[in-house]
């Protein structure tokens, strides 16, 4: 029987107790104890290459790709999985779990505010609930001890580079300077093999510097501004509420608040439209007066009177043909936008699904801003792979039959990754849900970018009705081109037009004068917010969706068609009043540009941090100086937000107040009561279940129409309850 010491031991640790052959090199050894003999032998530990990856799934793929036989050993060290692959030498492929290090305040100055001293520390020291990462980091450190060669194989972008850099620097004992870098855009075996063969000789330090600068600046702004707001509210109310803002969060909330203000302050103005219905070959069509909007009713009515004729004449028929080019390949923003359009997926939902597809090696790296597909990705190879799926056979086959494949590329490029494309690998298991939809969208888009332009025709028919001109405009697709390759996503709205020649007469059926009002600006939705952030160059492709989610989590915004809450308005107002630079898009954009300069090797991290701290200090000082006023404003909004959260709907008894979930200080019980109850103006109260969480659903009861509440018991499924004690559903013992 052979026992192997759990950890490699240093030569010096064992040589004092046992006889060691002095000719052995003084490095690290496996300590082997053979139990049936009274001898102890030392065996030289084989040195290996340590490869760090971002996630366990990526480690598995990389190990499978790099092992000579494609069968790496799946091992675990203190429960942390890793892989051992064999090729010209042994490789240990060890996964991280995303970020394992983070920026945190210097522990030596814990009560300091503003917090300007910080350090990079293990995540488990900075965040509650991250204690399991201590074991994970220790395992990485242990496994790195016997390595003499280090490779960073995390995703090739800012976040991936920081993850790899921090682990190599802090957990592996300063190996960041000697480590090499694998660069890849897909997790396919071919690309990983190629990436291993042609590794970059060192880490991409400008990219890392830019990433570190971004994290540090964001942390400085986030912690100090959020703490200033939270402290102000706490001092004013003696109650703790988490309020947050940040370098990107602030300007994002500001433009949402601006839109909300414009909607709430919108005054519609009336206008009138004039339309005619006429028939040609039995088909009824509608044409609109050339003056699209009449601003004075009497003028519209007088014009309508002049048009009351039985026949009209086609005065002119103009036709124009144009080519509609194929779309560009997907960058992340465009994918999120299309996924929202077709499936109503939020940007964060789309990114999560795309990330899973990437880890399954089905699509390329999704966090890209590129609209380019270089030939090196192997267009034909990918199409041949996709053609193995019956659903893609026709489109892939059509493209493969062409002599040349040339994608229609956009201007945007990304030095790290190409646009999003399918790898050509087919899913091992059938995909479902969001993954299935996003995969199909990426594949169809990939086909479409190689398609021919569609040929479309617009026709404008001008009708004369008693001297007044009416226009009928329509567009038809004559040659579908790329649209057929993008099916079912490539449908365009066609309006078929009748065959009318100049001078033809048409029978007028009716003239309609319609009352209209101008409309308020449309609300942003999750997709259009991300696009707006992209246009303003605030945040990064990887962070924008998460920042919007934070705004939802903080209750600054609500609903899919985004409405800014009272709390969101007040936070924006406070920032605008006391620190306008923080919510200024220009300020944020300027910092983004400076960080891009670091990435390009044109700027230094220290300069950007110094400048950012210089701008932050007076802002915090001003917030502290005005703390009572800031606190009062925020507390009012927090209370209002808490109140709104508990409102069920209008009171059915007094019609003046609202039914609200209340807590009786006297009995300690929850109940539904009218807001006028404590003013003694309304006595409406109903009981509620006393266990679990309860909140309004804003959905009416199917039986009685009252708004329902949702009860989340501590165990079991949530259920809906109508608070109306006389609701017919209660007689049948049903719940809504």
């Amino acid at each position, binding site marked *: 029987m052979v026992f192997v010491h759990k950890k490699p031991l240093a030569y010096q640790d064992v040589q004092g107790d046992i006889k060691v052959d002095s000719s052995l090199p003084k490095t690290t050894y496996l300590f082997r104890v053979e139990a049936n003999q009274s001898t102890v032998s030392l065996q030289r530990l084989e040195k290996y290459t340590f490869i760090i990856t971002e996630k366990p799934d990526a480690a598995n793929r990389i190990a499978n790709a790099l092992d000579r036989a494609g069968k790496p050993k799946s091992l675990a060290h203190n429960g942390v999985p890793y892989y051992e692959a064999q090729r010209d030498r042994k490789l240990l492929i060890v996964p991280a779990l995303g970020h394992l290090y983070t920026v945190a305040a210097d522990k030596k100055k814990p009560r300091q505010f503003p917090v300007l001293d910080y350090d990079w520390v293990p995540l488990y020291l900075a965040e509650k609930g991250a204690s399991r990462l201590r074991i994970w980091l220790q395992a990485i450190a242990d496994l790195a001890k016997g390595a003499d060669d280090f490779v960073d194989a995390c995703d090739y972008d800012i976040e991936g580079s920081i993850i790899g850099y921090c682990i190599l620097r802090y957990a592996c004992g300063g190996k960041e300077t000697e480590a090499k870098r694998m660069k890849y855009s897909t997790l396919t075996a071919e690309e990983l093999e190629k990436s291993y063969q042609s590794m970059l000789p060192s880490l991409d330090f400008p990219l890392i510097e830019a990433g570190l600068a971004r994290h540090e600046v964001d942390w400085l702004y986030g912690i100090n501004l959020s703490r200033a707001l939270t402290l102000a509210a706490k001092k004013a109310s003696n109650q703790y509420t988490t309020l947050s803002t940040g370098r990107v969060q602030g300007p994002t909330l500001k433009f949402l608040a601006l839109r909300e*203000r414009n909607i*709430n302050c919108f*005054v519609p103005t*009336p206008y009138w439209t004039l339309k005619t219905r006429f028939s040609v070959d039995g088909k009824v069509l509608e044409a609109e007066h050339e003056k699209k909007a009449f601003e004075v009713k009497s003028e519209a009515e007088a014009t309508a009177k002049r048009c009351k004729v039985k026949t009209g004449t086609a005065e002119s028929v103009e036709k124009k043909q144009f080519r509609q080019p194929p779309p560009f390949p997907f960058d992340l923003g465009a994918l999120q936008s299309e996924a929202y359009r077709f499936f109503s997926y939020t940007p964060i939902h789309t990114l999560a699904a795309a990330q899973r597809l990437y880890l399954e090696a089905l699509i390329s790296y999704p966090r890209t801003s590129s609209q380019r597909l270089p030939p090196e990705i192997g267009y034909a190879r990918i199409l041949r792979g996709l053609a193995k799926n019956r659903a893609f056979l026709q489109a892939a086959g059509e493209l493969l039959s062409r002599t040349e494949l040339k994608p229609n590329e956009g201007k945007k490029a990304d030095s790290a990754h190409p646009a999003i494309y399918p790898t050509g690998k087919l899913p091992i298991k059938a995909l479902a849900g969001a993954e299935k939809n996003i995969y199909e969208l990426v594949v169809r888009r990939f086909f479409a970018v190689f398609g021919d332009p569609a040929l479309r025709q617009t026709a404008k028919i001008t009708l004369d009705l008693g001297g007044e001109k009416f226009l009928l405009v329509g567009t038809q697709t004559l040659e579908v081109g790329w649209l057929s390759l993008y099916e079912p996503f490539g449908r365009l709205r066609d309006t078929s037009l009748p065959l009318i020649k100049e001078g033809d007469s048409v029978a007028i059926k009716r003239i309609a004068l319609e009352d209209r009002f101008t409309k308020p600006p449309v609300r942003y939705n999750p997709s259009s917010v991300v696009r707006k952030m992209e246009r303003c160059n605030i945040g990064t492709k990887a962070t924008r969706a998460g920042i919007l989610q934070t705004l939802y989590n903080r209750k600054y915004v609500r609903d899919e068609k985004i409405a800014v809450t009272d709390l969101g308005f007040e936070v924006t107002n406070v920032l605008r009043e006391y620190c306008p630079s923080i919510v200024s898009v220009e300020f944020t954009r300027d910092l983004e540009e400076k960080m891009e300069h670091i990435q390009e090797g044109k700027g230094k991290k220290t300069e950007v941090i110094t400048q950012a701290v210089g701008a932050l200090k007076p802002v915090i000082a001003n917030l502290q100086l005005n703390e009572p006023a800031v606190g009062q404003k925020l507390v009012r909004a927090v209370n209002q937000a808490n109140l709104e959260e508990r409102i069920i709907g209008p009171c059915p008894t007094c019609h003046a107040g609202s039914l609200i979930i209340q807590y009786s200080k006297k009995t300690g019980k929850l109940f539904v009561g009218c807001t006028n109850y404590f003013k003694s103006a309304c006595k409406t109260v109903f009981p509620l279940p006393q266990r679990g969480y309860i909140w309004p659903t804003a959905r009416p009861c199917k039986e009685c129409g009252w708004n329902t509440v949702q009860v989340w018991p501590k165990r079991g499924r949530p259920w809906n309850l109508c608070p109306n004690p006389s609701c017919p559903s209660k007689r049948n013992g049903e719940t809504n």
Partner: protein
Amino acid sequence: MTCKLCNRASTRDEFCEFHLRALQNLKDSYPAWKRALDLSWKDYLSQIAENSSAGNWVKEVAKYLIEHEET
């Protein structure tokens, strides 16, 4: 001082900055309504208070003015 229509602070005026802006927009849009429909100020306010496209703050101001303005 607080706004007559919400609890937000107002400095000199009876409305907060949001309702004040809504009031200004109401005043600015009246000439277009007058030209279009030849309405009185009061009728204009009634139309706005019931219009589904009008903003919430605008409607609140319109209703307040209907109740509190002298004819």
